[in-house]
């Protein structure tokens, strides 16, 4: 036989077949790659439109004077908050003193304080209407064509109302400058009077709170001139810098949609929700997962091992929606019921009021993360070459020493990457948080300490799942959701990448 | 015979070595036989062939060493295999020396043939028979790895020494009596001594055969136990 194939046509045929086959597989690989590239492109394409719209949205907020009104509103809201706090103090007082008689003075005081905000509220209400009207006008004028959200249907609402001159409307709105100054003056007088003769409280706790309240109130009153000044200086035509579109998203503390007033797309509450849920899940899952990995790979008897391992892997196949349903149906109830048990009274933030909260979601997610962590960590432990173990035993180490000093260090990066992949899974999980996290879009009240973990939150995945079905395609809300998706994408990609790097390193160091 | 090696080439090499030794021994035997026959029958031709044979034996000696080294190199023999190789390499010079002695005898026989026959030549016959028997038995002991036979050969050397001494004495006496034939007797003395040396070499061969078969070095033993 010759190495220079004598049968040239056959050889040519063979070579063409070979390259055709190669081309076939290559093109398939290409399809996969193109599609995977498309994902990124599409997320970016739809996501990045958000910033333009958000900027327009923010500009309208200023041009229509909504921002102006919000300055005043903040004052009104602070006042209302102070009133509410008085109510809390009353509760504290009444709890220690069952006899209601002494509370009368306090009630009067509190009513008077509440009344002192009357004019301010009226002002806010007026300005509100004016600003909204102005906004409609501006939208009609097409200045904010970008804002095409479903709830602000401009074409229908703007047409019937008589076109108003925006400039005149703005001037009308700005009269509030003066009014606020006057109202503030009045309020200051009333509140000062009230503070001069505060009611006496008996309970030391209440007294302490009351002192704090008084200080806050004084600060509040002292703010009036500043606010007044700000109102005067406020300028509707001051341009909104472009970067605000991004910072408002990344650092925005409000996620408000479909509001009559102004939509806010700040990711922080969602991010905090996701992180809290993930933290709870990992806090539970990491010790359990790693413990069981060590147990199964080093401690358990062979029969035990052959049962536990498939069983835990089996757990990972439980669909998340089933877990979520189980959370609603069983876990939430159980957690709340447990917190209401008398013997749990010592926990400061118990009993909890919400059935569905961070903890409920987190504990269910932990169950999802355990198999991931377990499988990968067990893999890492098992892949430690037998020789290491034998060498350690041969040097007179016992099992614990061998585990602690040889096996775990040798597989540490494997274990860490297992934890990271677990984190990725938890952050990206949708149905459980959608069903069990409570879906309240707000940053939990961290003043309660650990109690914050028993408050409902909303998460990034949850918000997409919940709102995506109802938004108008192409609207700012739609794009905001894509932006959330992008953040999620980037986050999990980063976590994953880190995990892969770690695994690669550990493969190398052991291999 | 021991079972075969897994490596057939090893067996081949070993048997080639052994065959060469045996062939060498056979040749030496023939040479010796011819030399003595040449002497007794006063046949110069036989003597000449005997002398010519030596060449082949010399080459066989070299061949055996070459093959022996080759086996050591390639197969790293141990135990009995190693002993066989070492024995073959150690006994081949002895065979070579036996052939040399035969050559010596043949040379001296040719000289004797130029003179009238000496009756005392008969004295050589039993010596030759004894030496030859020892030599044959020693190669046999090697070929058949027969330890007992080997040991027996060693023991028989004493007799040969004695026979040689007697012959020596008688020939010297004859020499003194008959100085005319002095050179002839001297040659006979040397021939007798050569045959005695053949016995010595046979002893060496037998010792090597014992070593190969039983891993025992029986050389210089009587003296050793004496100390």
């Amino acid at each position, binding site marked *: 036989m010759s190495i220079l194939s004598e049968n040239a046509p056959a050889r040519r045929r063979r070579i063409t077949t070979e390259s055709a086959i190669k081309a076939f597989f290559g093109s*398939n690989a290409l399809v996969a790659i193109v599609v995977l590239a498309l994902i990124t492109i599409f997320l970016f394409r739809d996501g990045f439109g958000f910033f333009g719209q958000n900027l327009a949205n923010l500009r309208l907020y200023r041009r229509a004077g909504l921002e102006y009104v919000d300055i005043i509103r903040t004052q009104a809201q602070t006042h209302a908050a102070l009133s509410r706090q008085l109510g809390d103090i009353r509760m504290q007082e009444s709890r220690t003193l069952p006899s209601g008689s002494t509370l009368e003075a306090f009630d009067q005081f509190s009513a008077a304080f509440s009344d002192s905000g009357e004019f301010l509220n009226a002002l806010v209400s007026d300005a509100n209407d004016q600003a909204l009207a102005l906004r409609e006008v501006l939208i009609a004028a097409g200045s904010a064509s970008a804002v095409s959200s479903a709830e602000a249907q401009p074409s229908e609402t703007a047409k019937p109302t008589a076109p108003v001159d925006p400039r005149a409307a703005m001037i009308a709105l700005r009269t509030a400058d003066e009014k606020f100054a006057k109202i503030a003056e009045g309020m200051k007088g009333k509140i000062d009077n009230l503070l001069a003769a505060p009611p006496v409280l008996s309970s030391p706790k209440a007294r302490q709170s009351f002192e704090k309240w008084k200080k806050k109130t004084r600060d509040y009153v002292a703010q009036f001139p500043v606010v007044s000044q700000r109102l005067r200086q406020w300028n509707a035509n001051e341009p909104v810098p472009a970067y605000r579109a991004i910072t408002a998203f990344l650092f925005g503390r409000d996620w408000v949609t479909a509001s009559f007033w102004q939509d806010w797309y700040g990711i922080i509450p969602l991010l905090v929700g996701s992180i809290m849920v993930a933290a709870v899940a990992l806090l539970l899952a990491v010790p359990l997962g790693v413990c069981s990995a060590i147990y199964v790979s080093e401690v358990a008897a062979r029969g035990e091992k052959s049962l536990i391992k498939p069983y835990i892997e089996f*757990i990972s196949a439980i669909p998340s929606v*089933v877990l979520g349903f189980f959370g609603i149906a069983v876990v939430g109830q159980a957690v709340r019921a447990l917190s209401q048990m008398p013997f749990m009274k010592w926990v400061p933030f118990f009993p909890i009021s919400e059935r569905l909260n961070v903890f409920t979601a987190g504990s269910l997610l932990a169950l999802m993360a355990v198999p991931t962590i377990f499988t990968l960590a067990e893999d890492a432990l098992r892949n430690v070459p037998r020789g290491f173990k034998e060498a350690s035993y041969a040097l007179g180490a016992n099992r*614990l020493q061998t585990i602690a000093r040889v096996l775990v260090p040798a597989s540490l990066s494997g274990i860490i990457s297992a934890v990271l992949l677990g984190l990725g899974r938890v*952050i990206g999980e949708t149905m459980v948080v959608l069903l069990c996290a409570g879906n309240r879009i707000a940053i939990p009240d961290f003043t309660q300490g650990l109690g914050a973990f028993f408050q409902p939150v909303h998460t990034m995945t949850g918000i997409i*799942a919940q709102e995506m079905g109802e938004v108008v395609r192409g609207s700012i809300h739609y794009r905001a959701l894509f932006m959330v998706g992008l953040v999620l994408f980037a986050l999990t990609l980063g976590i994953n990448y880190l995990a892969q790097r770690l695994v690669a390193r550990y493969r190398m160091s052991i291999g | 015979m021991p079972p075969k090696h897994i490596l057939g080439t090893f067996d081949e090499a070993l048997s080639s070595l052994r065959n060469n030794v045996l062939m060498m021994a056979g040749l030496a035997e023939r040479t010796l036989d011819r030399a003595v026959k040449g002497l007794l029958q006063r046949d110069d031709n036989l003597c000449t062939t005997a002398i010519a044979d030596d060449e082949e034996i010399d080459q066989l000696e070299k061949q055996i060493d070459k093959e022996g080294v080759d086996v050591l190199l390639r197969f790293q023999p141990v135990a009995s295999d190693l002993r066989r190789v070492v024995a073959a390499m150690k006994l081949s010079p002895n065979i070579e020396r036996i052939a040399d002695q035969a050559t010596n005898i043949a040379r001296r026989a040719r000289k004797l043939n130029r003179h009238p026959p000496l009756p005392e030549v008969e004295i050589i016959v039993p010596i030759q028979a004894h030496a030859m028997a020892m030599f044959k038995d020693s190669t046999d002991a090697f070929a058949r790895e027969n330890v007992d036979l080997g040991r027996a050969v060693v023991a028989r050397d004493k007799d040969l020494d004695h026979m040689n001494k007697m012959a020596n004495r008688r020939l010297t006496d004859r020499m003194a009596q008959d100085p005319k034939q002095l050179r002839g007797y001297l040659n006979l003395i040397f021939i007798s001594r050569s045959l005695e040396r053949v016995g010595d070499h046979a002893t060496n061969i037998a010792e090597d055969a014992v070593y190969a078969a039983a891993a025992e070095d029986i050389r210089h033993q009587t003296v050793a136990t004496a100390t």
Partner: protein
Amino acid sequence: MIAAPSNRRRSRLLERVLFWVFRIGTYFVLLCATYIFLDIGIKGGRTVFTRTAPFVNVKFLTEPPQTLYVFDYQGKKMELSDREFREWKTTHKEDVDVTSVSYSAGGIWPCIVGTALLVIGSMTLALFIGISCAIYLSEYSRDGRFIRLIRVAILNLAGVPSIVFGLFGFGLFVIFFGWNVSLLSGWFTLGLMVLPAIITASEESLRAVPQGLREGSLALGATKWQTIRKNVLPYALPGILTSSILGIARVAGETAPIMFTAAYAMRDEMPWQVSHWTNFFFQGVMALPYHIYVVSSKIPQNEYTERVQYGTAFVFLVVVMLIALTSILLRERQRRRLSW
């Protein structure tokens, strides 16, 4: 001899204690899972199984979901499904105070069908592309920077949350391609979602075939394709399929990606009831996981919803678990069988 005995005794005690901690942790996890299985199994079993022959609630498995009407009639509590209620109305004209609970009557047949369709379509797609891609990557590609980059990308995409895939599918297939909420969108979304996992698993299986087999074949004068076809794929395929079954479990179990690409909360027609065969691909379907989501969060909860909730969860869990079990058993067998 070397360590002080007291020291040793302490370390032995520590060893014992810690091992118990590990053991308790492990069994705690198992216990939690078992509780879930039992809870859903028992409560769901009440829906799916019956006390009388044929012991299976055939209606639940073969009928579409319907609204449940509950009312008191002549002191008797009536629980009727939509159809029954209308029939009942034809005979009883009087007004009754009816509470209607949607989805709580009937069965989940369309959901089962929808899920099956989604799984079959998306897995066909993913397996075809995924295996081809893996073959290319592990057998044909030369290891360059670009290929390495692709590998890293694929590995990382495997960890991208399913909701992001849903988002992407929604953006690309539903809106950009205009396929709307349809089987096709669902197939592609789910298929692409498992694609990275399948490529990775397939490549791993291919790589597990010892290099010696390839070299041995090539050294005999086989061409590359002959080598792959006869000496690589046959040994890698069982592994690929085994790990793909895990992919099936994942596809079947996912809710988020189909929520707005393929799933309808309620659809009266069955998937084969389409006017033209092309429409088959462009119809949305009901799916088990989405149904669970809907009945457990989108309708008011009361004592009547539990039946369908647990029943659906039970059926769904059984289906997914069976798939997963198959995969785990196959893999165990595989591990034992393959040892080069």
